[in-house]
């Protein structure tokens, strides 16, 4: 039996379990299906397949804690598309508080200033001041920029690297990093990040240091799940790319500028995140 291409495309365009075929634009095809038993079987088979695929396509396991993690990340991310993730690491918490305050002020912009509103505004201002004050005192502040963290960790490194045969447990090299590590050292608890530094060495890509640190995602807002193709930060003769996966932050430090970083990750054929360092508006 020969089936006109237009008929087949029409049948394929009808959603499973819908009455799409009864639409005016498909009236002619619907009539032919009604008259032609073979066409009816074809239509039925397509619908059967479509239903099976529709059922299967929705069957994807969602990580249990995904919703909580997303909410956590959103809470520390200011609604500002013009700054980079590194800026957000620097400004995240304060900006969020500032934005909330601004929103609260706008919402409170009523014709009459009552005593209660003055008290609320005073309390909010006091909270902000306390928050800012604490940020200077607490080393665990989420405002600590990644450059500072990397500087401190690099300063802790000595010349002697431990053998990879005695590698530490719980700070494994991520699968995205295909470059072999030639040694490791522990790094201390600055900014809450306790972890391990690896020295990576590649025949053509050269060397780099990779810090594998237990850090909350709030320290690295918008960190991708894989090494970025471009460094998020280039300062002091070093380029830094970071990502976050499985509760661990990974900070790759390559000596040199952006070109050096790109050369390293490309030569090392690392699996890279598909996102640029800046998130631009999409719609």
């Amino acid at each position: 039996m020969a089936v006109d291409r237009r008929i087949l495309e029409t049948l394929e365009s009808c959603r499973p379990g819908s009455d799409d075929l009864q639409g005016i634009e498909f009236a002619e095809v619907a009539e032919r299906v009604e008259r032609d038993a073979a066409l009816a079987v074809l239509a039925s088979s397509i619908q059967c397949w479509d239903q099976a695929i529709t059922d299967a396509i929705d069957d994807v396991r969602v990580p249990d804690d995904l919703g909580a993690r997303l909410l956590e990340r959103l809470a520390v991310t200011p609604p500002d598309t013009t700054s980079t993730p590194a800026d957000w690491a620097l400004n995240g918490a304060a900006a969020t508080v500032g934005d909330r305050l601004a929103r609260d002020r706008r919402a409170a912009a009523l014709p009459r200033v009552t005593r209660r509103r003055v008290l609320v505004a005073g309390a909010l201002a006091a909270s902000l001041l306390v928050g800012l004050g604490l940020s200077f005192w607490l080393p665990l502040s989420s405002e600590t920029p990644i450059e500072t963290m990397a500087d401190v960790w690099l300063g802790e490194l000595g010349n002697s690297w431990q053998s990879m045969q005695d590698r530490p447990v719980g700070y494994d090299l991520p699968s995205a990093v295909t470059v072999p590590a030639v040694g490791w050292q522990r790094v201390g608890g600055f900014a809450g990040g306790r972890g391990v530094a690896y020295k990576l060495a590649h025949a053509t890509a050269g060397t780099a240091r990779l810090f594998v640190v237990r850090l909350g995602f709030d320290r690295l807002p918008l960190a991708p799940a894989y090494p970025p193709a471009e460094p998020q930060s280039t300062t002091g003769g070093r380029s830094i790319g970071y990502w976050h996966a499985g509760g661990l932050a990974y900070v790759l430090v390559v000596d040199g500028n952006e070109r050096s970083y790109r050369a390293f990750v490309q030569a090392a054929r690392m699996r890279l995140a598909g996102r640029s360092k800046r998130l631009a508006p999409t719609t």
Partner: protein
Amino acid sequence: MLKGRDMAESAGPLDVGRLVVDHHQALYRYAYRLSGSAADAEDLTQQVFLTAQQKIDQVRSADCARGWLFTVLRNCYLKSRRQRHPLSAASMDLDVNAIPAQCVPVIDREALQRAINSLDDPFKTVLLAFYFEHRSYREIAESLDIPPGTVMSRLSRAKAHLRSQLTDGGEPLSGQLEPTPIRRVLPGVSPAAR
């Protein structure tokens, strides 16, 4: 279990936290089907909600939030693909005639993902809008800004490809296409062609 679509219809003020609670599972599933990777799916889902946080005022109501989020997701995905490499016009041999006579009652999830992964983006986006978003061909055309005829053509080819991958050369139905200007087996079909 209550699905996001149903939950989204519940009353209450619209904020991004509520969107996360209501829709993150559906978005993650969709992102996984688009990208084929758990890490990329999480990345995409996060990106969508960040966009939502910045543009929450564009969402008119909770009822249309799901469709809006899916559109943002698709745009995020396509944008990330363009950043990685230009859209491939690689050949895709599609036998538009092969509709297996036997309906496969249980579909292998991994085989399904492999089959989706093997589609070029113009086909994949149409296919997932049809199966995942349950959009009509006209709605897909409107949302992707392409002619309805193109949607029908891409949908037909993509579905044929999917079925052939899932059945590994299953018995085709007796229904065959009449000879048309497009050959029965289409070597090197360019996604941009139609």
